[in-house]
């Protein structure tokens, strides 16, 4: 156990360092932070002085070493744009993104898994074909178009749901949550759905494919031959066995959720990390971008670890052998 976790942690550090390095090498190209930090009338000398103060004139590797060194000491630096501590800015935004991502993921699982099971068990039915086609069309429309369409339909035309923001939030410790108010939930529906559509389709198709595969396996055939009731056969036997690959892919798709949450957050003005990141790009806010990426890599590593632990929970073959 210890060996396993240590090994994973070691690999995680590698992943995070690599992400930090890559992202850091990227910043030089995003634009000129100083132009974004100063006004029209700032003189050339003042700009140059600022550049020097921020260490932007230092060699790249030197800047990177300073960045990682500070990170390791727990110093996340200050935003160029707002001058706030980056750690605080990101920490403020994490709840919004996590809630959005989680709800989107849950929607995609709650809808995707039953739909996948249904379409696997009735592969030729009309309903199946319609579900498959609808979801396919759903993922073929770019996320931002879906988002805006939903906003105009439910926010403007019908007036049922808010068009932007998080609605009512509640502060619990350091965590701002929109899950405890009706307003919060109303604000969450559209972005979560927009973000979830892609995941939903993916989950559904994956569950469907795996389920069809599992339904042909010997143990399902044998269970059928024993007259195990259908419901139990489908859900206890077949579905459980599809979960291992499904979990892997869903874990891997975490990156996708993050990537698309940038788009979704920007469309819905959802005050999460993605929005912060986009603003930071606009203002070439290097410290925020850097920490954001490292945090994302960290989440990614965490999710990967969680997936592995989930495997063990699901699949007894991976558990410690009790008896020979």
């Amino acid at each position, binding site marked *: 156990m210890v060996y396993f976790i240590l090994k994973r942690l070691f690999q995680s550090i590698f992943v995070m360092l690599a992400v930090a390095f890559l992202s850091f090498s990227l910043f030089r190209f995003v634009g000129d932070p100083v132009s974004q930090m100063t006004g029209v009338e700032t003189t050339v000398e003042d700009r140059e002085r600022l550049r020097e103060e921020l260490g932007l004139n230092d060699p790249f590797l030197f800047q990177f070493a300073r960045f990682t060194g500070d990170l390791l000491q727990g110093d996340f630096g200050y935003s160029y744009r707002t001058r706030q501590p980056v750690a605080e800015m990101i920490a403020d935004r994490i709840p919004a993104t996590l809630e959005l991502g989680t709800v989107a993921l849950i929607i995609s699982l709650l809808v995707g898994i039953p739909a996948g099971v249904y379409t696997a068990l009735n592969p030729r039915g009309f309903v199946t074909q319609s579900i498959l086609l609808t979801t396919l069309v759903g993922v073929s429309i770019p996320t931002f178009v879906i988002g805006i369409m939903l906003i105009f339909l439910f926010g403007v035309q019908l007036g049922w749901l808010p068009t932007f923001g998080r609605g009512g939030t509640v502060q619990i410790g350091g965590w701002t949550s929109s899950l405890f108010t009706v307003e919060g939930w109303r604000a969450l529906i559209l972005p979560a759905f927009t973000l979830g559509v892609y995941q939903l389709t993916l989950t559904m198709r994956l569950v469907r494919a795996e389920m069809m595969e599992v339904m042909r396996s010997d143990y399902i055939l044998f269970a059928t031959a024993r007259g195990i009731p259908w419901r139990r056969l489908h859900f206890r036997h077949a579905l459980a066995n599809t979960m291992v690959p499904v979990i892997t892919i869903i874990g891997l798709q975490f990156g996708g959720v993050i990537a698309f949450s940038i788009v979704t957050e920007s469309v819905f003005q959802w005050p999460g990390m993605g929005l912060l990141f986009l603003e930071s790009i606009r203002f070439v806010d290097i410290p925020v971008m850097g920490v954001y990426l490292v945090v994302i890599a960290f989440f990614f590593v965490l999710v990967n670890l969680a997936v592995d632990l989930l495997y063990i929970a699901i699949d*007894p073959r991976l558990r410690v052998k009790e008896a020979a």
Partner: protein
Amino acid sequence: MLDVQGLTVRFPSRHGDFTAIEGVSLSVNPGEIHGLVGESGAGKSTIGAAVIGLLQPPGYIAEGTMTLGDVDLRNLTAAQAHQMRGARISMIFQDPQTSLNPLMTVEDQLIETIQAHEDISTSDARTRAIELLEEIGIKQAATRIKAYPHQFSGGMRQRVVIALALCTNPELIIADEPTTALDVAVQSQVLDLIKRLAQTRGIGFILITHDIGVIAQITDNVTVLRGGKVMEHGPTERVLRAPEHPYTKALMDAVPRLDKRVERFLVPESDVVKVASPAGLTGADAEAWLLDGVQQGGADLEMKDVTVRFAGTRTSLWTKPEPFVALDSVSMQVRPGTVMGLVGESGSGKSTMAKVITGLVSPAEGQMTLAGDPLPAAKQRPRDHVSRRLIQMVFQDPYSSLNARHRIGEILSEPLWLYGLEPDAARRRQISAAMLDLVGLSADSIDRYPHQFSGGQRQRIAVARALLARPRFLICDEPTSALDVSIQAQVLNLLKDLQARFGLTILFISHNLAVVRQMSDDITVLRNGKVVEAQRSEAFFTAPKADYARELLQLTPAITF
């Protein structure tokens, strides 16, 4: 009890309906073990599936009646049929590894099966399950029942499968090749169990197999199938001892006998239409080509104290596994121009031996020599080492040993090209075609793909590929265990002929003692990676020295009449 009359099953396909079985009739009485034999694709499994109502779509029953007691099996609704399964008819599948749900404990699977058909409390169901496990010979059933399938050995798993089929007290159990995946020792235990259950509980069994030995050992009646039709049926002893139908006769002749060695098997006449090779080269030319390349001097192989360790199977995700000793200081000497038989139960290290010799696996210790020269181990053996050509191998599974995406011509000419035996592409093609002729295939096969051939034909192609390297030492790793008897007989004949003609040295690996008896001059018996006996073949079969060897001989199902 079970009565099937005139059953016809069809599979519609794009080329019209395919009739898998046609007008099959059979009946099974309580306590009877009814054998179904026949070559692969004869329709054995299809009968079983039709009876239990699990024909794979698009297959359907075209004609015939099936009754179980007073129930007409063809006239059931889907729900009734499902209720029937398990309660009155059960089934056992070939592979115990894959028949159990890996995510559920044995207990859960047993209890749910019992509760599916009976309104019974969980604790009562558990008691029943434990009793049943005890009855079929699992010790400490009360604790072992909590285990997951992967925590059982293959034989125990097959017992669990049987327990699952039994736990609802069905009248009829269809056992589809229940022992094919098991080795002889376990096989004989399972067969004993089936026999006992038939006798004590009066359960009717349909036992599907292609192993005549198994049929001979436990069935009461037997039905011989070929091409979906019944060739012959009747009491087992009568059918096997005095077959009436010519096919049955041919089948019996093709069965390798444990008690005597035959020079050649009689095989049912093959229906391959020979087409002349495009360049007019024939098997004789191929033979000449081969002889042309025969180097003088023997290809004797010697292995000394070879030890192989593998990173052991992971027992837990957290700790590093113990190394697993697959071969433990094994020595073996193969005389030039003879056939060495290598036998042993599954997992004893036979294939590992072959891999060490071919350089796929590097031994931790030990030396090898080929024709007196040292034979470097895997990593040290250069890619162009002469032994790469001299040692060739024929694999067990003819379905996966040929690259499905390459044409036969490409597969065959590859060694010619690789070893630089023939620089000219057209000539390579001619020789390949001639070699096909030599192994008894039509020369126009050269432009086809492997999937267009039957298992036996593919195995011939594999042999041809091996020969095209002009080898001196041929390793055959269970070359026929995936084939049914008649085809096995053809392949064995071919190997015998080639060995005789070209003086090849062969290492013949098998777990089937009867087959080995027909082929080998010497015998090495492996167990758990150790050599337990090494002998001249005849001496071994008449008077084995080691206890383990004696036991093996005894357990091998044989036709004893």
